[in-house]
């Protein structure tokens, strides 16, 4: 496989690192608008497979020129650029994988319109796997793995929580770990869920409930959150799905910003000045840092003791005429950092590794056109995932 990875940030770096250590991959080209950043990432990865190039994600032609010859184009930039990157993949005849997506695909899923470039990709015999990171991505595949066992699916509830044990750093400003602007916009956007089989819009931070996560997280407040999963699962799962939502743990910092209107992009006048609140907020918040470059292996053991992430998929349906519920617990994908670093050169594989698996499945032959993670063969995906040697288990509760 020849791979082109666009974006040398917190996800692009791990993606290139995984690919560079994969025997099936002969070449990795890492493109970024900031060639110095790409060079630093390549230097950290090392080995002879990786090259870097300057590429602007807003320009499909430029991406295509840089990526020509690649079998797969990995889209690791923020979702607003997805249409350009996807166009570039089509133009050079490469398969495409992203880890998140936004418009126009959301509206197309909500209103049942044809998906952008789906027809053209099919005609070109190409696969574009949309949103195949951790969530969306891995969580969709796991969900599909269990809905495959059911005759009918009544509901799918997806829940994510994080918890840091020990003394909280009370004075640290909010740092989502990636683009603060994009994270704020996600938090401020209306969320969508499926109710009575129909996609329904709801306000951000609505649907507050306490969900009982496995220890050490335990009961945690969760609310609706704008995410891809309810849209794609409603599109793909079938089996009479009536209800599907995605609820995220209530993080007080972005919640306060959004609730007070400080993440708004609508201009407001204060005194004689006009400003978009989010512009001031983003200026004041810490800049996003490259987690891949700043990764500290000495913290792996401590991080496993203190920092927890939990994904839950709760699936209700029927099998052979009887009610059946699966409650699947997916613990932190970045645990056992030392082993992950040995396998992939980094512990930060939670988003990138599912993308790499999806790319391999696209190359091996799967559905053509725009494909969502749950449309991949779940059993094959999970086998490939575990065959990497990753020390990971999910649990049926």
């Amino acid at each position, binding site marked *: 496989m020849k791979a082109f990875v666009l974006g040398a940030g917190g996800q692009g770096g791990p993606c290139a690192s995984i690919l560079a250590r994969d025997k099936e991959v002969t070449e990795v080209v890492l493109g970024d608008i900031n060639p110095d950043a790409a060079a630093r990432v390549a230097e950290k990865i090392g080995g002879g497979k990786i090259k870097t190039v300057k590429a602007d994600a807003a320009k499909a032609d430029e991406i295509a020129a840089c990526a020509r010859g690649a079998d797969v184009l990995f889209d690791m930039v923020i979702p607003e650029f997805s249409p350009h990157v996807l166009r570039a993949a089509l133009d050079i005849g490469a398969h495409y994988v992203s880890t998140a997506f936004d418009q126009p695909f959301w509206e197309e899923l909500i209103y049942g319109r044809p998906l952008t470039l789906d027809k053209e990709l099919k005609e070109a015999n190409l696969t574009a796997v949309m949103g195949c990171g951790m969530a969306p991505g891995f969580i969709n595949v796991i969900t599909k793995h269990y809905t495959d066992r059911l005759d009918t699916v009544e509901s799918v509830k997806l829940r994510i929580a994080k918890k840091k044990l020990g*003394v909280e750093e009370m004075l640290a400003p909010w740092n989502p770990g990636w683009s603060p602007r994009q994270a704020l916009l996600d938090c401020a956007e209306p969320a969508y869920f499926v109710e009575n089989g129909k996609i329904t819009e709801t306000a951000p931070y609505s649907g507050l409930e306490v969900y009982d996560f496995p220890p050490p997280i335990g009961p945690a407040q969760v609310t609706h959150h704008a995410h891809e999963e309810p849209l794609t699962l409603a599109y793909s799962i079938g089996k009479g799905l009536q209800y599907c939502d995605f609820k995220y743990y209530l993080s007080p910092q972005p919640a*306060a910003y959004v*609730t007070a209107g*400080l993440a708004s992009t609508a201009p407001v006048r204060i005194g004689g000045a006009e*400003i978009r609140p989010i512009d001031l907020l983003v200026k004041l918040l810490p800049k996003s840092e490259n987690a891949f470059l700043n990764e500290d292996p000495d913290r792996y053991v401590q991080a496993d003791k203190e920092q927890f992430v939990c994904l839950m998929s709760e699936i209700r349906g029927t099998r052979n005429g009887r009610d059946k519920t699966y409650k699947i617990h997916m613990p932190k994908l970045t645990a056992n950092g030392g082993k992950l670093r040995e396998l992939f050169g980094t512990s930060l594989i939670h988003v990138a590794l599912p993308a790499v698996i999806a790319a391999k499945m696209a190359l091996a032959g799967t559905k053509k056109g725009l494909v969502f993670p749950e449309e991949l063969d779940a059993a094959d995906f999970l086998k490939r995932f575990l065959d990497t040697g990753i020390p990971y288990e999910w649990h049926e509760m």
Partner: protein
Amino acid sequence: MAKRILILGVGAQGSTVAKRMNEEADVAEIVCADCDPKAVDALVADLDKATGARVDARDKAGIVAAARGVDLIVNGLPLAWHGNVLDAALEVKAHYQDFAATDALAGDWIESIRVLYDVYGPKFKAIDRTAIVGTGSAPGLICAASRRAVRELDVCETINNIVFEGVEAKRFLPFWWSPVTALTDMGERAYAVRDGALIRTEPFDLPIKRFYDYMGLDAPVTLTEHSHDEPVHYWFNRETFFKGVKNVSFKYGGAGVEFAKPLYRAGLLSKQAENVNGTEIVPFDLVLSHVPPAPKYKEEIEAILEEGLVTDTGCMVVEAYGKKDGADVMVEVHVFAPGLADSFARAGLTAEMYLTGQGGALFTKLFVEDRYTQKGLISSDMLTDEQVDRYFELAAELGIGIRTEIRRV
């Protein structure tokens, strides 16, 4: 002899004191004064002992004119105007009461409080009158509770004043009092006493957790440093009223704190202008423009209650650690007061208005009962034991109770 009282500022605190004093047999007249004639008229219409006056607090002569002949001035005005009100009280030889210590008498708040004690104190003493500052709920009620706790000790080492305001509406309403004041307090470095010295601490820092079963919550609440009057007053009075206390903290938590903490962390409570894409903007002003005012009128409060509350709980606790008969002990005084729903049912008020206004009115009532034997200027932490006991007797009549627990540690 029945008293004549001037209420200056008829906001939440002043109007509550006026209403309460209207019920007192020993109050002959209440002069309600404010720069807003509509607010004055609305209050006067409800009170049979009240007359109204329009007063601009920037004009001391106007305050003096309104205060001529009154026994007591209750100052519910913003801190900036307290100097004028204090001077007017001296001029008309009236007693004086306010709800928080002003920062307007010197360039620094601590120096301003020192001026209150050292400059205004002797002046009030010279005219044989009493001035008492900081008489709401906190400072005020909690200071009386602190004195009640320290009474149980021979030597006091540490005092924690703990306040958790857990009244949270379903609608976006982070503060039940002035958002300007709340956000200013939240953005300031706090005061604390450590090893006998007055120090500054970071707001939202040094968290403690407490669990009180009567709050009806599943988990402990978190309380952090917060800029407030109490540590400063206790520091000034550490030897005379607090048995040599070495450490004092004001610990605060609740919905407003949870809202303000991320803003502080992001620098959004700063009053320094930022340049954003060529536009100068003060972060504090942007935040303030997005925060709704506290509900004031009965109809507003009723609407909030009808929409529903997320939580209606809270606590006010004094922890005093020290020695008693040679043993290490901790005295805990819990203050119990009506929540929002109960406050509204009792008086048409929010819990914040109820506790602060009624807490203040009880200090006024001590005036009406001629309980103040001190001449000069005192703060609410300087009551005698008898005054503290009377204060809580009166508080109990309003549904504000205390429970004292003493434990070896």
